[in-house]
C-alpha cells in the first residue's frame, strides 16, 4: 500500500492531496422466523483520492487498486474544475502511526458455526415466546483496515472491528402489528454480543405490552426520556446543528450559531467525543488524519464549540476537531458526529418520575430525523406517568419539536449516564449507516409534542 500511495502522491500537483485505501471483511447472518435467510461474507477492497486546488475538491474512487494512478490524475482534473477562491485548511501536525485493533476477542477468530449458534439462541428465545408471531435477528461483524496518506506527510494505518446483533419480535392481532426491537454493537469485540439473554427477554415483554397498548393521545406532555432515547435526542436535536458544514459558508447560520449563545439551562452539557475507545463512535484519527477528541458543544447551557473538518475549521478560524468521516473508501469525508452525549446531571430517576402528574416515560428509539430547526424521533415503547408513578404502556409515541425551544425546556438531568452503539448508525449526504454512539442520563423535558 505504501508504494502505491507514494507513487500516486508524487504525481499530484495540488494544494493538498490524500489517498485512502481500505480493505474489509464483513460477515453477516440473518434469521427471519426460524430460517437462516442470509449468511455470507463480503470482501471489499477499494480506495479513493481527494485533491484540493484553490479551494475546490476533486474526488475519485475505485475498487480496482490498479487504477490508483489514473484515479489521481482524474481527481486533479476534477479539482481544477472546482477551483475557486483559494485553499484554506486549518493546519494540523502530520501523524505517522500504526494502530492495531486490540479491544477484545476478534470476531474473525470465531467460527461461523459459533456465530450462527449464538444468533439462533437469541432468535429461538423470541420465537418460542407466547404471543410472538415471528422474529428477525441479525448478526454482523466488520473487520476493516484503513490506510491514509496525505501530501503533508501523514501516514496512518488503523484497524476497526465492529460486532453487533439486532433482534426484533413481532406480535400480531388482526391488522394490528407491533414490534419490539433492540440492538447492541460496538468496537469492543465478540464479547459485546454475548450474554444478552436478559435484553432479549425484555424485548418479548415490550412486544407483548405494545400489542395491548393504546395509542398515545396527541398533545403536549412532560416527557422523561430514557438514556438511549435521550442520546438520540442529543444527536438529532443538537448534534447535527453543531456540524460546521451547515454553518461555515452561510452568514445567517453563523450568526445563529455564534459561540457564547445560550441554548439551554445552566445544568445542560453536551459533548462529542471521538476518543472513547471501544465505542461505535471511536475514531483514533478521522479520515483527514486529525486525532479524535473530546469537544464540548454546550457547556453550562452555553454554545462553546462545534464539529469541524479541516476545511470548515480553516474557514471559520477555529481548531479542527477530528470529525471528518467517510462511510467507506468510495466516499469523501464530511463533518460527522462520533460519540455524542448529554453529560451526567444530579437528579435520580425516581425523584424525576415522582414530580410528574400526567406525563410520558419514553424509551429506546425507532428512528430520528432533523431539518436542524425541527426534530422528530420515535420511541420504541413508552409508558404513562400518572401522579408520580409509571403506569400503563403506550404505543406510537413520536416526539417532535423546535430545537431552540426544546433544549431550554429540559427541566432535569439524571445521574445515570450511559452510552449506546448498536447495529445502525447515522445518515447524512447519502452516507449511511455511519457508526456513531449516543448517550445520556435520563432527562426530563416539559411541553413536548407527542403524537
Amino acid at each position, binding site marked *: 500500500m505504501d508504494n502505491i500511495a507514494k507513487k500516486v502522491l508524487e504525481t499530484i500537483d495540488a494544494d493538498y492531496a490524500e489517498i485512502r485505501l481500505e480493505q474489509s471483511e464483513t460477515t453477516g447472518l440473518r434469521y427471519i422466523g426460524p430460517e437462516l435467510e442470509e449468511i455470507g461474507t463480503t470482501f471489499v477492497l477499494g480506495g479513493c483520492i481527494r485533491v484540493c486546488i484553490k479551494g475546490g475538491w476533486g474526488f475519485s*474512487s475505485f475498487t480496482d487498486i490498479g487504477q490508483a494512478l489514473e484515479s489521481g490524475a482524474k481527481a486533479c482534473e476534477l479539482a481544477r474544475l472546482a477551483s475557486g477562491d483559494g485553499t484554506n485548511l486549518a493546519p494540523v501536525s502530520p501523524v505517522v502511526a500504526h494502530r492495531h485493533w486490540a479491544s477484545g476477542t476478534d470476531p474473525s477468530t470465531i467460527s461461523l458455526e459459533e456465530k450462527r449458534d449464538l444468533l439462533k439462541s437469541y432468535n429461538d428465545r423470541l420465537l418460542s415466546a407466547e404471543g410472538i408471531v415471528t422474529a428477525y435477528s441479525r448478526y454482523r461483524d466488520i473487520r476493516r483496515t484503513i490506510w491514509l496518506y496525505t501530501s503533508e506527510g501523514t501516514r496512518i494505518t488503523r484497524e476497526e472491528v465492529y460486532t453487533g446483533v439486532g433482534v426484533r419480535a413481532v406480535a400480531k392481532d388482526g391488522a394490528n402489528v407491533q414490534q419490539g426491537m433492540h440492538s447492541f454493537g460496538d468496537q469492543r469485540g465478540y464479547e459485546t454480543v454475548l450474554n444478552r439473554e436478559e435484553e432479549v427477554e425484555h424485548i418479548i415483554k415490550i412486544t407483548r405490552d405494545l400489542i395491548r397498548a393504546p395509542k398515545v393521545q396527541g398533545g403536549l406532555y412532560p416527557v422523561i426520556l430514557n438514556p438511549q432515547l435521550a442520546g438520540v435526542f442529543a444527536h438529532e436535536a443538537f448534534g447535527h446543528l453543531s456540524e460546521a458544514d451547515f454553518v461555515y459558508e452561510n452568514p445567517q447560520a453563523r450568526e445563529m450559531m455564534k459561540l457564547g449563545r445560550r441554548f439551554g439551562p445552566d445544568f445542560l452539557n453536551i459533548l462529542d467525543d471521538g476518543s472513547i475507545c471501544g465505542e461505535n463512535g471511536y475514531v483514533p484519527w478521522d479520515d483527514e488524519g486529525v486525532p479524535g477528541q473530546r469537544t464540548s458543544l454546550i457547556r453550562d447551557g452555553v454554545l462553546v464549540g462545534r464539529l469541524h473538518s479541516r476545511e470548515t475549521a480553516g474557514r471559520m478560524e477555529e481548531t479542527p476537531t477530528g470529525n471528518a468521516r467517510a462511510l467507506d473508501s468510495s466516499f469523501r469525508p464530511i463533518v460527522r458526529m462520533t460519540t455524542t452525549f448529554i453529560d451526567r446531571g444530579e437528579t435520580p430517576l425516581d425523584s424525576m418520575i415522582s414530580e410528574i402528574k400526567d406525563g410520558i416515560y419514553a424509551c429506546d428509539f425507532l428512528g430520528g430525523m432533523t431539518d436542524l430547526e425541527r426534530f422528530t424521533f420515535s420511541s420504541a415503547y413508552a409508558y404513562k406517568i400518572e401522579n408520580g408513578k409509571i403506569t400503563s404502556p403506550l404505543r406510537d409515541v413520536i416526539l417532535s419539536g423546535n430545537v431552540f425551544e426544546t433544549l431550554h425546556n429540559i427541566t432535569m438531568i439524571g445521574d445515570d449516564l450511559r452510552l449506546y452503539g448498536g447495529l445502525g448508525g447515522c445518515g447524512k449526504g447519502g452516507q449511511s449507516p455511519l457508526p456513531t454512539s449516543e448517550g445520556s442520563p435520563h432527562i426530563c423535558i416539559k411541553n413536548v409534542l407527542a403524537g
Partner: protein
Amino acid sequence: MIDRILDKAKHAVDFAEVYCFESFETEVSFESGKLKNVEYKNLSGVGLRVIHNGAIGFSSSTDPNRFDDMVEYARESAKFGKKVDFEFPGKSGFQPVATFDSAVEEFTSAEAVEEGKRAVSALRELVPKGLTDVDISASHGTVRLANTSGLDVSYRVTDFSHSIVSVIVDGDSILWIGDGGNYGNLTVRTDDYVRKIADLAKKARKKAPHTAGNLPVIFVAEELHNLLESIEMGIDGKRLVKGDSPLIGREGERVLGTVTLVDDPLIDFATGSRPFDDEGVTSRKNVLFENGVFRSFLFDIDTAAKAGRTTTASAERDALSMPSIESSNIVMSPGTSSLEKMIGDLDEGVVVYGVLGGGQSNLLAGDFALNIMLGFLIRKGEFAGRLTDTMISGNVYKSFDTLAAAGSEIKSVGSQYHVPDVLFSNLSISSR
C-alpha cells in the same frame, strides 16, 4: 472474471449464480452557492449465490484477489444456510424496456457544473435570502447475471439525478425548499425546479395561524411515498411466508379505498425498470391493488415456492448482498383533477410539500406521524401561510378510504414512484 468464478464454482457446489455490477458515476455538488466538489467513482462488485446439498450460501467481493476465495466462503456458508426447494432459472426472455441513454453516459462534469451555476444564479435573483445547494449526478453501468443452469444475461443502465435546494436561514428559522428528479435518461429541468422553488419560497414568507383537527390534506405527488412505503412492506411476499404482513388473508378484499396500484418494471427510462429481475426472471407488470381490492403480494423464486405461487420477478439486489423482494416502479392510476383545482376547491385544509419523520413509525401496521417541514394552510382556495410545528398522523390503509380526488397527471417522482397529487378528505392534524 464472472466466467472464472462460475467455472470454479461448478466444480465445488451443486448450483451457482454470479451477479456482477460495474458503475461509473460523475457527481457535482454546490454548497451555499459555491462549487465545492466534483467526483468520479468507478466501482464494481461480484456476488456469488450457491445451492449446495439443498442449502443456500453466499459470498461477495469487490477485490479481484478474493474471487477464488469467494467460492470457498460461499460453500462454507451453505453448510448453515437455509434449505431451499428451488433451482436457479435457465435461459429467460428479455422484456423490451429502455434502461440506457447514451446522453447520460456522455454527460460531462463540466456540463453539470454549468447547469449548477445556472441554478445558483437564477435563485440568487429569485430567492435572494436563500443560499443554494445543487447536486447533479450521472451514472452508467452494466448488470450481468449468469448461473450454472445456463442463464447468462446482461443489460446496461443509466441514471441521472438532479437536486436543487434553497436554504433560507432567518433568525432561528431554517427553511429548506427543494426540487429535483431522478430519471434513467438525461432529463435536465433546471428551469422548472428553480421556478417551483421560487414560487414556494414566496408562499412561505407568510406564517399560518396554528391549525389542528380533522382536515382535508393534499399530498403533492413528491410526498406520497411517505404513505406508500407502508404498503410496499405489506405486499412483500416474504412477510406473507413469515406471517407478519397485515395483508395476509385479504387478497380479494377492498383494503385501499378505490386506488389502483401497479408494480411496473417496463416503463422506458424509469429508474425502477429492468428487462429481468435480479434472479434472471423475465420482468412483468403486477397489479397490486385494483380499485382498492388487494390482488397480489410480490414474490421472488424462493418465497413463491414456499407460498405455492409463481414469482412476480421482484428479486432485487446489489452485487454485495443477497436478493430481497422489492417493487420496481410503483404506478398509481390517475384521477380527473389537478393540484390547482384541488387547492382552489378547498374551503379549509392543508397542502403538504415536505415532511420530516417518514419511516419512523410502525410502518408495517401502516401507522404514520409526519412533521410538516414545508406545508401550507389553504383557506377558501387560497394559500393562507406556511404551517409550523404541525404534525399529520393516521393509518395509511384507513387514510386511503378518504381519498377524495387525484390529479389527472401522473408524475415521476423520487426514484420509483409514478403517482398523481392526491387529496384526502380527512386526516388528523395536531399542532402546538
